[in-house]
C-alpha cells in the first residue's frame, strides 16, 4: 500500500507540474534564449565569413611608408600596396577617395602603433585596413625568417602535451578534474532550479488546507519522499530541456558556431572520485531538501518561508566565493570550516574531491555527516509537517512540536 501510494504521489506531483503551461513557459525560456543567441551567432558568423570573403576578394589598393624597413616591397606589391614617402599627400589622396588606404609604419612597430588612414567602409568593412596593415608586416617578417616552422614558433604557436606522475602512476591532470566537477554543476543547477519548489511543495498542502485529508490517507513520510523524488524528476526534465539545444548545436551546428570539437575520450574517470562525488551530491541534496521541507512546514506562507530559505541558499553558495582558496589552500582554516560545516560541506567537498585534495578519511567523515544529518532533518521535516501543516495561520512553535511525545502505551480510545 505504501509503495502504491508513493507511486501515486509521484505520478500526481510530476503530472501536474509537467502539465502546467507556466512550467513549460519558464522552462523553455532558457533553451529558447540559447537558441536565439545561437541563431544570432550563426547569422553573425555567416555574415562575418561573407564579409571576410568579400574583403579578401575585393582588390584593395593602398600606399604605405616604412620607417622600420621591415616591410617587404614584394609582399606589399602582391597585396596591392605602393611605397610612398609623402605621407601628407597620401592621406590627402585617401581623403579625396582616390586611394583606399595609407599605412604609416613607424621605426619600431613593436613599440609604436602603425598609423592607418582609410576611406570609411562601415564598422565591419573598416576592419580590413587593420588586417591588411598587420598581415603585411607579419608576412614580411616570415619572409625575413625564411623558414615557415621558425616563423610559427616566433608567433608562439607551440603545443605542449604534458604528462605528470603521482605515486608512480600517470596523473589524470585537468582531464581528471572535469568528470567529478560535473557533480558540482549538477548539484548547483538542481538546487538553483528546485529550491523554490522544494520550499513550496509542502506549503501547498498547508495553504490549501489539504493536510488533514492527506494525513488520514497516507503516511507523511511517504508524501514527503514522493515529493522529493518528484522534484528530482522535474529537475532532471528541466536540465534535459536546457541541455537539448546545446547538444543539438554541438551535433549539427558545430562549424557554424565555431564550437571546438571535444575529445571526450581524453577525460579520465577515477571510480573512487566519482563515487565520493555522487555520495556527496546525494547527501547534500537530501540535507538541503529536508531542510527546505522543514522550513516550509513551520511557516504559514511561502512569503514567510522565503526569508529563511534565503539564508540556506547563502550558506550553499558561500564556498563559491572562496573557490580559489579551496583549490589552492585546501588546508587553510576557512576551507576546513567550509568543508565540515554541513550546509557548506557539499559544494566545498565536491570541489576538493574534483581537485584531488580531499583525502579518504575526510571524505568518509563528510559523507557520514551529511547522510546522518539528512536523515535527522528529514525525520524532523516529517514531524514538523505532521504538526506544522495544520497550524494554518501561524508559525509553528518547535517547543510545542517536541512537547507532543507519547508518554505511555495507552488503553483503547
Amino acid at each position, binding site marked *: 500500500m505504501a509503495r502504491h501510494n508513493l507511486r501515486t504521489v509521484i505520478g500526481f506531483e510530476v503530472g501536474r507540474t509537467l502539465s502546467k503551461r507556466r512550467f513549460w513557459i519558464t522552462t523553455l525560456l532558457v533553451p529558447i534564449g540559447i537558441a536565439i543567441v545561437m541563431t544570432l551567432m550563426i547569422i553573425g558568423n555567416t555574415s562575418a565569413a561573407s564579409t571576410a570573403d568579400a574583403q579578401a576578394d575585393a582588390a584593395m589598393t593602398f600606399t604605405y611608408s616604412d620607417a622600420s624597413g621591415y616591410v617587404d616591397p614584394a609582399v606589399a606589391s602582391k597585396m596591392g600596396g605602393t611605397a610612398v614617402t609623402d605621407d601628407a599627400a597620401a592621406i590627402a589622396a585617401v581623403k579625396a577617395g582616390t586611394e583606399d588606404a595609407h599605412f604609416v609604419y613607424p621605426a619600431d612597430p613593436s613599440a609604436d602603433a602603425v598609423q592607418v588612414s582609410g576611406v570609411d567602409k562601415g564598422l565591419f568593412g573598416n576592419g580590413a585596413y587593420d588586417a591588411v596593415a598587420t598581415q603585411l608586416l607579419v608576412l614580411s617578417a616570415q619572409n625575413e625568417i625564411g623558414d615557415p616552422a621558425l616563423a610559427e614558433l616566433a608567433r608562439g604557436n607551440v603545443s605542449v602535451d604534458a604528462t605528470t606522475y603521482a605515486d608512480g602512476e600517470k596523473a589524470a591532470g585537468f582531464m581528471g578534474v572535469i568528470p567529478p566537477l560535473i557533480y558540482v554543476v549538477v548539484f548547483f543547477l538542481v538546487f538553483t532550479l528546485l529550491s523554490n519548489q522544494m520550499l513550496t511543495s509542502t506549503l501547498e498542502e498547508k495553504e490549501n488546507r489539504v493536510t488533514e485529508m492527506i494525513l488520514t490517507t497516507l503516511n507523511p513520510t511517504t508524501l514527503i519522499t514522493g515529493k522529493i523524488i518528484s522534484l528530482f524528476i522535474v529537475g532532471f526534465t528541466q536540465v534535459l530541456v536546457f541541455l537539448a539545444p546545446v547538444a543539438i548545436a554541438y551535433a549539427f551546428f558545430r562549424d557554424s558556431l565555431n564550437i571546438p570539437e571535444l575529445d571526450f575520450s581524453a577525460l579520465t574517470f577515477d571510480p573512487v572520485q566519482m563515487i565520493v562525488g555522487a555520495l556527496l551530491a546525494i547527501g547534500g541534496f537530501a540535507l538541503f531538501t529536508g531542510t527546505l521541507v522543514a522550513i516550509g512546514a513551520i511557516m504559514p506562507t511561502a512569503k514567510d518561508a522565503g526569508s529563511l530559505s534565503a539564508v540556506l541558499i547563502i550558506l550553499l553558495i558561500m564556498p563559491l566565493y572562496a573557490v580559489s582558496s579551496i583549490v589552492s589552500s585546501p588546508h587553510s582554516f576557512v576551507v576546513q570550516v567550509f568543508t565540515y560545516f554541513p550546509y557548506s560541506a557539499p559544494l566545498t567537498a565536491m570541489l576538493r574531491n574534483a581537485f584531488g585534495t580531499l583525502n579518504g578519511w575526510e571524505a568518509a567523515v563528510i559523507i557520514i555527516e551529511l547522510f546522518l544529518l539528512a536523515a535527522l532533518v528529514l525525520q524532523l521535516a516529517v514531524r514538523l509537517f505532521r504538526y506544522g501543516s495544520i497550524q494554518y495561520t501561524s508559525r509553528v512553535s518547535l517547543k510545542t512540536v517536541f512537547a507532543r511525545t*507519547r508518554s505511555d502505551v495507552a488503553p483503547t480510545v
Partner: protein
Amino acid sequence: MDFASTTVIEDLSFDVRRGETFGFLGSNGSGKTTTLRALLGIYLPSAGVLHIDGRPFTPEAGSRLGYLPEERGLYKKESVIAVMAYFGALKGLSKKTATAWSMDYLERVGLADKAKTRVDKLSGGQQQKVQLGVTIMNDPELLILDEPTKGFDPVNRRLLMDIIEEQKRNGATVLMVTHQMEEVERLCDRVILLKNGRAEAYGTIPEVQNQYGGTMIRMSYSGDIPASAHYDISTRDRNYAELTLTDSTDEALILRDLVAAGVLVRSFATSKLSLDEIFVSVYGEQNEMAAR
C-alpha cells in the same frame, strides 16, 4: 492529549458500534476536533489510540475510512476530476474506477459540467460537495464528519444529509461532529457530549435526555400538588406546573396519584428535554462563566 503543559482531552473513552450514527457534541473549544485529530493520528496523543474492528488505525493499513475535516481544502490549482482521481488512487481505487465514480458523483450533485474546472474556480459550497465526494469515494466503513453541513445552504444541506443517510443504509458507521441538534436528533443513534475534554454525557439520545432531567410533565390543574419522591416541582405558576421526574416511574402512575390526592387535572402532557435545551443547559453555564 496535551499541548505543551495544557491537558486538552483527558481520560476520554468511547466506542462507536458498527452501522450506527454517532453524534460528537460539544461547544466551541470543548475538544471535539482535537479528539478526532488525535484519534486519526494527525496529532500524536500523549495516550490513546483509535481501534477499528479491534485493530489500531493507521492511514496506510487499508482501513476504509472517510474523513471530512473541519478545515476544508483541496488542491486548488488542479481540476476537480484530477483531485478526485488522486484521492481515489490514494484510497486504493484504480484511476479508471475513481474517475468513473467521480463523474457519477458530480452528476448527482449537479457539478458534472465542472469536472475539468479548476477547484479554485468553484464556489465554497461546490468545493464542499467535491470534498464530500472525496471523503466517501472509497465506500468507507467508518465515516468521520467534522461539521459536515457548515457552509451549506438549506437545499444542499438536505442533499448532504441524504448522502450521509445513504452511506448509513449501505452499512457505514458514521461519527459526526455538529452543532445542529436537529441533525443529531434526525440522524444519530447515540451521542457523546464533550465538556472541557471530558465526556459530560454518553449514550442514546433518550439516555442523555434522561440524564439531563429525563421526562417532564406539563400540567394545568386545580388543588395542591403533593410532594413526592418520584418528581420535583420545577415550575409552579397559578394553575400550571412542570414536574421533572426523578426516577423511571410510569407517568400514568403519577397521574393516578395526583388524582387520588384530590388534584383536579385539566391537562397532562409528558415531554423530554430536547437536545438543544440540554446543550444550552450544559454549555450555557460554561459560556456565562467564560463571559464573566
